[in-house]
């Protein structure tokens, strides 16, 4: 396989350095809006849909990167776009199930949902799985970044007379340091605004590259006619080859990946939580999937398609044996002029950094919410005042960002031996998402789903997944749809179907046998040695899980051990975990969203549709939790005291950066004025004489 070094000129490097300085200054400017942990992680829940849509572009495009889709575009053609065009199926579940629940239940992280919906032990296991998922994702991001910049770097450089080779890991460590510095001092507001800028630049750079490629080849008709027919088809062959087939990718990406991305990617969830309300979040998701993703599919894959066309026309310029992960850089260098190549490379690396930034910020949020705070509470060492506590948490969040960055670099080691980034990412998604995806999905849509079922899914489901990974020819083969098993990387994609199947199977069986578990536990409780029996079952469950985990004994014994885990875990959870179906599901399932809305507001929601009104603010002393409008304005808004209100700067292009959420207080008689306190003015960043738009939320 042909690999490259030293691609690009000094002009390209200058353009790249200038680009990065501008982006970092831009991010730092908005970093000053980070005043507390809510701003650091959620941007203060105030932004408009268009701002969030564009900022999601940089995150989505970055993670589904130029490198891996160009590689598959070069190897297989237009079907590299299929992973971008299969996300619509789960959108009803997201828009009307998960999104309102996470907003109205005020959870700050996905594991926190597991505690509210199930139990603290479910939260603990979800935290472990989610941290693994997020850190793995960061590792994939760093690996892609490293593979993107390596072709531009020399093979080695000389320092104090010593020749230092440039390795993939070395490049990744330097990139990680730059990324870590930026995110640590910026926070979510900085990330959102940097991503907004980068979203536009990315789309522009990708489309520009396509234009250059078409021009280089002599026009679109020539490009289209150069591609072999198989390269023009939008979907891959049903079940071959093993490293890129439709059915495997359907289960890995359209099912596990789409639910994983929409439901458990804390980075994306935090973007939606930064929207000013649920409906804005729905708009952001819809516009992103309907219009932005198809454009993004062209943006990220076209270098591979153009590379294929050039390799057909002029194989001496682009050899068919070019390393697929390097094709983006190779093609960009051929078709773009010096300086322009630097700009395209800067946009690519900045996009990847956006993804990694978002994930680092999100993982730090999980650490603070699900590790730091519970540990502090356990040690009873909470600071006296809220301000002091928030200050400490913000500092801890910054340290957590540094730690997560370091772990992300280590995670690269697990993926760097896959032939392409695409396969590494596919394997990662297929393996890590199913247990959490099943846990969240059934938790939201099935009221009967119990803590026993979710914890057994996390433990027993994982045990069955380990067996599948160890004996793919026995366990995964029945699900393979005729895909040939690659001995080096068996069933990288279709394993998602097996993993999802076993997790759903465990979840359903444990849920429908709840009454049996309750009966057995009541018999044990009524016996004399209940504690001793339960301690024995605990020890056995751990021992059996270790047998599977550590590959002790033969296949037969491991299967028996996994079965024992599936029997013992539900009994243990039923015995030790307190669970009340009504309390634990109220406002936390799709069937109780109206309860969630009521809990969110603290009173019955007011759904009468009113108008938006324009007002000037008047500073008053008083209660910081309410704002006061005139009676006339409140009639126009169809609002009553106690309803929720969103107040923002009238200038729409600000996207809600200058805004607050509050509660309607008692009305006054001064039409066109809203009475607010100095601290509300400061928090909303309102400017004197500038008009504000007010709208009733609920």
């Amino acid at each position: 396989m042909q690999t490259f070094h030293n691609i690009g000129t000094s002009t390209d490097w200058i353009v790249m350095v200038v680009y990065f300085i501008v982006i970092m200054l831009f991010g730092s400017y908005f970093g000053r809006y980070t005043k507390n942990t809510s701003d650091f992680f959620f941007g203060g829940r105030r932004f408009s849909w268009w701002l969030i849509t564009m900022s999601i572009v940089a995150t989505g495009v970055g993670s589904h990167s130029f490198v891996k889709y160009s590689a598959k575009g070069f190897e297989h053609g237009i079907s590299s776009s299929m992973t971008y065009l299969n996300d619509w199926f789960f959108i009803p579940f997201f828009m009307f199930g998960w999104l309102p629940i996470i907003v109205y239940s005020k959870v700050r992280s996905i594991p926190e949902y597991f505690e509210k919906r199930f139990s603290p032990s479910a939260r603990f296991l979800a935290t472990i799985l989610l941290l693994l998922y997020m850190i793995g994702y960061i590792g994939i991001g760093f690996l892609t970044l490293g593979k993107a910049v390596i072709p531009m770097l020399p093979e080695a450089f000389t320092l104090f007379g010593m020749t230092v080779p440039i390795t993939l890991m070395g490049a990744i460590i330097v990139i990680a340091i730059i990324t870590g510095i930026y995110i640590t001092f910026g926070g979510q507001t900085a990330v959102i605004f940097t991503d907004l800028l980068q979203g536009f630049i990315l789309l522009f750079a990708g489309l520009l590259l396509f234009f250059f490629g078409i021009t280089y080849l002599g026009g679109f008709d020539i490009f289209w006619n150069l591609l072999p027919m198989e390269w023009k088809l939008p979907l891959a062959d049903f079940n071959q080859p093993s490293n890129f087939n439709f059915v495997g990718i359907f289960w890995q990406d359209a099912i596990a990946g789409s639910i994983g991305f929409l439901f458990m990617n804390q980075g994306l969830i935090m973007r939606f939580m930064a929207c000013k309300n649920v409906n804005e979040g729905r708009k952001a998701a819809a516009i992103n999937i309907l219009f932005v993703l198809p454009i993004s599919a062209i943006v990220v894959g076209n270098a591979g398609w153009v590379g294929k066309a050039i390799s057909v026309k002029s194989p001496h310029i682009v050899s068919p044996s070019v390393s697929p992960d390097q094709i983006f850089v190779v093609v960009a260098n051929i078709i773009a002029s010096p300086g322009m190549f630097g700009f395209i490379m800067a946009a690519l690396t900045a996009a990847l950094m956006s993804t990694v930034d978002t994930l680092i910020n999100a993982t730090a949020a999980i650490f603070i919410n699900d590790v730091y705070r519970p540990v502090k509470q356990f040690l009873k060492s909470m600071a006296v005042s809220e301000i002091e506590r928030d200050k400490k948490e913000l500092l801890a969040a910054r340290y957590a960002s540094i730690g997560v960055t370091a772990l992300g670099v280590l995670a690269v080691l697990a993926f760097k031996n896959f032939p392409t980034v695409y396969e590494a990412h596919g394997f990662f998604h297929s393996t890590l998402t199913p247990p959490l995806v099943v846990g969240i999905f059934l938790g939201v849509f099935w009221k009967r789903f119990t803590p026993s079922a979710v914890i057994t899914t996390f433990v027993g489901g994982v045990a069955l997944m380990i067996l599948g990974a160890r004996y793919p020819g026995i366990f995964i083969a029945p699900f393979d749809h005729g895909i040939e098993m690659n001995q080096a990387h068996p069933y990288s994609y279709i394993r998602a179907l097996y993993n999802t199947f076993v997790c759903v199977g465990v979840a359903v069986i444990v849920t429908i046998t709840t009454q049996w578990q309750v009966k057995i536990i009541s018999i044990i409780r009524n016996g004399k040695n209940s504690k001793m029996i339960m301690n024995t079952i605990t020890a056995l469950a751990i021992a059996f899980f270790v047998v599977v985990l550590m590959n002790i004994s033969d296949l037969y014994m491991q299967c028996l051990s996994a079965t024992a885990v599936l029997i013992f875990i539900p009994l243990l959870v039923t015995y030790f975990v307190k669970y009340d179906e009504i309390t634990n599901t109220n406002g936390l399932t799709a069937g109780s969203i109206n309860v969630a809305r009521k809990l969110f507001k603290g009173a019955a929601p007011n759904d009468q549709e009113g108008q938006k009104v324009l007002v000037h603010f008047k500073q008053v002393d008083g209660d910081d939790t309410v704002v006061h409008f005139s009676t006339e304005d409140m009639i126009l808004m169809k609002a009553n005291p106690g309803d929720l209100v969103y107040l923002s700067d009238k200038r729409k292009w600000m996207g809600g950066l200058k805004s607050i959420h509050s509660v309607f207080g008692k009305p006054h008689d001064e039409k066109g004025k809203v009475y607010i306190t100095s601290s509300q003015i400061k928090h909303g960043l309102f400017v004197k004489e500038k008009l504000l738009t007010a709208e009733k939320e609920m």
Partner: protein
Amino acid sequence: MELYSHTWLPFIYLYGLGGILFIFGIYITIKAGSFDLQRRTHKKWMWILLFGFVWYLMMHALMTWAALGIISVYTVPIVLLGMAVVFIVLALLSKKTKT
């Protein structure tokens, strides 16, 4: 037959199984009450959801026909843009009628 496994078989699998999941998603959220078609905004979302499904189905079908040489590749963006424009115009007209 080999071409079928590269063209319409994945298409049928994608929109058959995907379609079942999509309809199940709408059904379960309506049944749960979180998707309330009595509310005007939710009714609007229902149309957007259905449009999105047809939009993607048409996108893949047109791209497959274009790859097979049955239609011109330029037809793909023209039809898709046309669909989006018609949908937006209809949405604006219905909004105007209601106000």
